[in-house]
């Protein structure tokens, strides 16, 4: 087994009495793709908020490659190697696709380090590769605001790739996509696997079967079960809590 890339230790948050995430511990190995399953309100998105620093946790720790990043400011956690894609795609709508990717190459995030005109050749090459990978080479000079929904999602994925985040959090990457777009998204995600560590929230079971190795099921803020696809699909507690008493019909 590889080294642990992301480790959560008893992570919890208390919203004046309501514990949306309640003592979650898990370890995701380097290069692993972990899927988070759970009904609405199970605490999936909140868990991502806690990892990425959007919400401050009240208990527990978050380690990225062994480094404690618990409750640091968002950009500090991002610099520690955590990238995040939101449920509603968020790109820089006033910039071109190329500029979006340029900004995403945030190796040197300081203001003064960026008072230069252009990227070096190596960075340019990586940018072109990424454009090719997400299939937006022809749209490189297009303003990101006019891209289609699917293209916007891919651009955001591309930004995470080029950001060189070692741990990538994806919140429902296929929400609102057509079947064709979903298939292409699965392809992109499968390419990320191995190089990056991924934590994916997803509802679409067909898509989950396409990409998942291990699944963690959350229920009412707690970890209910963890295992491979077959194990989870046949787990009685999961059936009861998430899929309903009848299981998948």
């Amino acid at each position, binding site marked *: 087994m590889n080294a642990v890339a992301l480790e959560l230790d008893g992570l919890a948050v208390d919203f004046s009495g309501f514990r949306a995430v309640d003592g979650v511990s898990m370890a995701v190995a380097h290069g692993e793709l972990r899927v988070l399953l759970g009904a609405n309100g199970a605490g999936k998105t909140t868990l991502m908020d806690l990892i*990425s620093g959007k919400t401050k946790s009240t208990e527990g720790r978050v380690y990225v490659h062994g480094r404690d990043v618990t409750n640091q400011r*968002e*950009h500090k956690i*991002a*610099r520690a190697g955590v*990238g*995040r894609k*939101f449920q509603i795609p*968020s*790109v*820089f*709508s*006033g*910039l071109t696709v190329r*500029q*979006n990717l*340029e*900004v*995403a190459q*945030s190796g040197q*995030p*300081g*203001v*003064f380090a*960026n*008072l*230069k*005109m*252009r*990227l070096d050749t190596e960075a340019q090459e990586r940018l072109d590769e990424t454009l090719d990978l997400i299939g937006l080479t022809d749209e490189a000079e297009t303003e990101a605001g006019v891209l289609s929904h699917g293209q916007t999602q891919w651009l955001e994925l591309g*930004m995470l790739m080029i*950001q060189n985040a070692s741990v990538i959090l994806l919140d429902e990457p296929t929400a609102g996509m057509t079947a064709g777009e979903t298939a292409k998204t699965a392809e992109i995600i499968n390419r990320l696997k191995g190089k990056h560590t991924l934590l994916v929230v997803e509802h679409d079971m067909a898509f989950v079967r396409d990409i998942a190795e291990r699944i963690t099921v959350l229920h009412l803020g707690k970890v209910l079960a963890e295992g491979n696809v077959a194990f989870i699909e046949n787990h009685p507690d999961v059936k009861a809590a998430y899929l309903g008493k009848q299981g998948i019909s």
Partner: protein
Amino acid sequence: MKTLFSSYHVWAYLAFAIVILALPLIGDEFWLNRVAKYLCYGMLGAAVALTWGYAGILNLGQGLFFGIGAYAMAMSLKLKSYTSMQQGSETPVPDFMLWNAEPGAPTDLCCITPGSWLWIPFQSQWVGLIVAVVLPAVFAYIMGRIIFGQRISGVFVSIITLALVLLTRLIVTDAQPLTNGFNGLTDLGWFTVFGVELDPYSKVTYMVVAVALIIVLALTRMLVATRAGTILQATRDSDTRALYLGYDVPAYQSFFFAVSAGIAGLAGMLYVIVAEFASPSFLELSFSVTMVVWAAVGGRGSILGACIGAILINMLEARVSETESLVEAWKLIIGFVFVIVVIYLPKGLSGLAHDLMSKLQSAPKLSSVQKEEAHQ
């Protein structure tokens, strides 16, 4: 340099530079003095565009920075004025301080009125010059760190900046013995460079202002073309996304906020050299909003556009105001123009020019493609 000077941008900047440098050939000193004031306003317009267009921060208190720059320079020039030399002391003391002083107070800057010692360093015009640019920038940076560090954005930033400029105005007018209150600082001396006195009504002074404007415009345009400039625009579109890419968004916002404030301070300083007064009217809300009008009409997304917008509006205003009965009508027109620009032309005149130019540029390409198709 492809992205910076692609296409017509460089030509637009060059043309503008040539035009304002050539104006002394056609105008007299009186007219040039007026144009020099508008060039200062143009610089101010560019400063507004930098924060508003590129950072998405609508600063409704930009007049604060202009005012600080203006007062800093005016304090130095006031001490150089003949009106400050006739108080029977070794060192200059502003005339109004004498009028406001307690009977029997020593005629010296150290202690003629409480706080008058603040004026002492301004006996050097270079202190005035440096303070005029550095103080607004430093103040804006600290302000930005506090405001943006709290993740305050949008209208709330506008309200804070607006409250701050009005607050400062009240303090300046209340500190009558120190600032001459509502009357402001008048009867100023002249700035001197290498033994040359900058007579406001001279071609030399005009050229100083024009060259300063050209340098500021060029540097600002280059600044927004850097990676940092692109990142700033990124924070405008989505500050969350930029944060999660690892950028310290408040640092970027504060940096450019400070640059914009420094430019505004420089504009205020030059304005005082040309106009020979500083007054609390610079700190009125209407002045700060007027700058935004200039930038909106010229184009908030273009440094040069906002600058030209400011100059054109003021030239037009001066022309219209020559007819007494039209002075009030002009304000009415400005009101209408503003509403129409905001609704129908959010990118301003420069946006219009941009659309026009890209049509012109793409037209020949299109026709050549069509020709090829016709051949096949």
